């Protein structure tokens, strides 16, 4: 247990530091040491993870940089049962990713300590963008997605992640007779009437906001008149790109519907496997990495970190989880490193921009078999 106590202490040191003010080199040293501790801890807890770490081309104990440490591809979190570093009895909550139809979602398990850190991590980050004050919280989603559940999807996790800022929470979608989502206009307008003079936090999935709020209100010519609102949204652009909705158009139209300035609309990038870390756009349109995390963008050909200005596969790093080995995760996303320090917004450290999802991996060519010719009724392993 003392290893975990030591870990907790080191994690809290980074978690309580100003998220974007540490000197990058100093931060790298602190993260490297802590991540090594966490890998050692996880290796002790999980023999299969240890097997992976032992086969890594670089011994993590002697690694000089975070980039040399053993990272897991995000697909391993689709395993069932999920990869865990805690006993089943210690699991308080399981987060699932928003897999598209036919795909297996990722599942990560949280114990009480990791869940606590997750909440604290998100608050620390969001506070830096919208300020510390608690305020009314308008959720552009259905009421059922607000409820605390043992197994929580990406939408639910994101909604609850911001819940700590709330003095009161209202969801403004409802189900229509066909079971589809609709904006509950009466409820929404009542909230607006009540909150129009105050700071309000709004959150929703990007495509949900567009489909169920912006478009219907635009059609009806309704403007909400909430200049003091901060609208956070996440969940990716794929569906809106299919509708040829650009990021600028989304931001402009959403701001127009709320009657606020466009800089009050904040897009952020995040994933359940990277618990407690989100990457909101700063006023310069860049995504920043907090003190307790790191982002490495790797060249797909070499897997080495790219230089500023180059694109590659995104690896997210976080010291927050101790209930599953999600410290170093290679995602299926592509991003561009803008630079490793010096964003004009004043936030220190790595800043980047999301580029696109890597297309689904498929076996290709004449070696691509979908089915076997005839079924085989044998087992799969040899004693």
């Amino acid at each position, binding site marked *: 247990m003392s290893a975990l106590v030591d870990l907790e202490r080191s994690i809290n040191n980074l978690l309580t530091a100003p998220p974007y003010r540490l000197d990058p080199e100093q931060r790298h040293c602190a993260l490297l040491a802590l991540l090594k501790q966490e890998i050692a801890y996880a290796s002790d807890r999980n*023999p*299969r*993870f*240890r*097997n*992976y770490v032992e*086969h890594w*081309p*670089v011994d993590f104990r002697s690694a000089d940089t975070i980039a*040399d440490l053993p990272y*897991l*591809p995000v*697909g*391993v979190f689709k*395993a069932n049962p999920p*990869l865990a570093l805690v006993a089943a009895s210690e699991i308080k909550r399981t987060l699932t990713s928003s897999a598209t139809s036919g795909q297996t979602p990722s599942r990560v398990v949280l114990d009480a300590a990791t869940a606590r850190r997750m909440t604290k991590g998100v608050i620390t980050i969001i506070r830096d963008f919208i300020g510390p004050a608690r305020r009314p919280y308008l959720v552009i989603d259905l009421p059922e997605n607000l409820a605390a559940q043992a197994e929580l999807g990406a939408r639910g996790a994101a909604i609850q992640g911001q819940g700590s800022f709330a003095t009161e929470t209202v969801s403004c979608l409802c189900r229509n007779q066909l079971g589809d989502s609709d904006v509950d206009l009466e409820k929404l307008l009542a909230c607006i009437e009540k909150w129009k003079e105050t700071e309000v936090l709004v959150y929703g999935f990007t495509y949900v906001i567009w489909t169920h709020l912006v478009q219907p209100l635009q059609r009806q010519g309704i403007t909400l008149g909430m200049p003091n609102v901060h609208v956070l949204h996440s969940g990716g652009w794929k569906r809106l790109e299919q509708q040829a909705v650009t990021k600028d158009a989304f931001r402009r139209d959403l701001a127009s519907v709320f009657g606020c300035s466009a800089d009050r609309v904040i897009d952020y990038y995040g994933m359940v496997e990277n618990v407690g870390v989100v990457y909101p756009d700063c006023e310069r349109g860049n995504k920043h990495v907090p003190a307790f995390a790191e982002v490495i963008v790797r060249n*797909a*050909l*070499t*897997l*080495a970190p790219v230089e500023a200005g180059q694109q*590659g*596969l995104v690896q997210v790093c976080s010291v927050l989880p101790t209930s599953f080995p999600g410290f170093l995760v*290679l995602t*299926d996303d*592509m991003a561009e490193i803008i630079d490793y320090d010096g964003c004009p917004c004043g936030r220190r450290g790595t800043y980047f921009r999301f580029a696109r999802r*890597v*297309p*689904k*991996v*498929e*076996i*290709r*060519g*004449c*070696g*691509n*078999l*979908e*089915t*076997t*010719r*005839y*079924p*085989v009724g*044998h087992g*799969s*392993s*040899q004693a």
Partner: protein
Amino acid sequence: MSDLIQAVASPQEIICAAERLRETARQKAIVPQMVLEVFDHWAAALDARELREVPGVAFLRLWLRRGTLEPILLRELGPDSLHGAWRDEGRATLRAFPLGVVGHWPAGNIEIQPVLSLTCALLGGNGCLVRVPSGLLEPTQLFLEKLQEVDRIGLLTERIFMASFDHSRMDLHEAMARAVDGGMIWGGADAVSQVRTLPFPHWARVVVFGPRLSVAAMDTGAWGDPAERSSWCRRIARDVWQFEQQACSSPQALFLERGAGCDPAEFIEDLRQAFQEENRLHPRQEIEPALTSAICQARASWLLDDAANRATFPASPDWTILQGSRVDVPKPTQGRTLSVLLVDDLLAVISRFDGTVQTLGLGAKDAQREETLAQAAGRQGVDRIVRLGQMHVFGSPWDGMDLVRPMVRLVRHVRSRD
């Protein structure tokens, strides 16, 4: 688009091209000897600097040589086939005639395949209508430029129409299928299934190559022999490197038969060195990020699935060796990822083949054992059993089928008078 590969926009263009090709095949008969002559020059012309980096070009040059093709023609079409003569068969005579126009749907992953496919039909005297996949336009163009250089009178080039159109243009696929007398289809499960459903005329002969996968296997005597081990490993590396393991002839797994006193760790070390050396000689120039993801995923899944599994790989995605013990063929990853699996008995592995295994690359020291394994493999649906290092050597039969014979008609003439 070049003048050698036409960007096709309408079904009418395909219909017109097919009519021209059919007329040429009918009016200007050619015999295999004439085709071989041009192919020989073509093979020499392909030894060009701009083609050296194109994967498979060495195989293509080898394939086009008279020394390779003559024996194939003699076996498939008979002893007098080279000059187009009638050959006696009892009281009758036989002679091969072209089907007419053969449509080719090559796979999009093998650079030399559009050309390989059309050579089979040209040897039978056919006209060729080839859909060139979008990813293969550049190498195909280079190959055809070399053919144009050596085929000054247009003996073969006037029998070829290379078409480029988006794979989703079903109207053009359908026009192509309706216009041909034969079809050669190559590729993955999706592509093959789609092309097979096209409206070919009822008389058209359609042959399908793929989708398949391939595996390698070695008996104890072969992999356990320190004197020969590194040589075997170099051959395996050569087979793994070709076509990024996307070809149906690429080994995805190597099964090693356990033996007393043989240390798999020593074999893996030699294999690692062979992979490193092959990578030094033939480094990747580019990679799709999706393949990098798949390689990282394969490494991690393998090691996380079972703490007894082993793996050897560099920090880059250049190559991967996954080690374990199981008798079934794992799901392929491609991208130079080889599963090396220790088994008690290779026959147990072969007995589980389900008809999808095309090639079994063998390294066996015991000749009698090899015979037994080959017999068993043949029974379990394997169509090629070759020495390791030669898994990609294209030849006839392929996928258990002749390559020229299916695209000709054997005409039988029984004389009206003795």
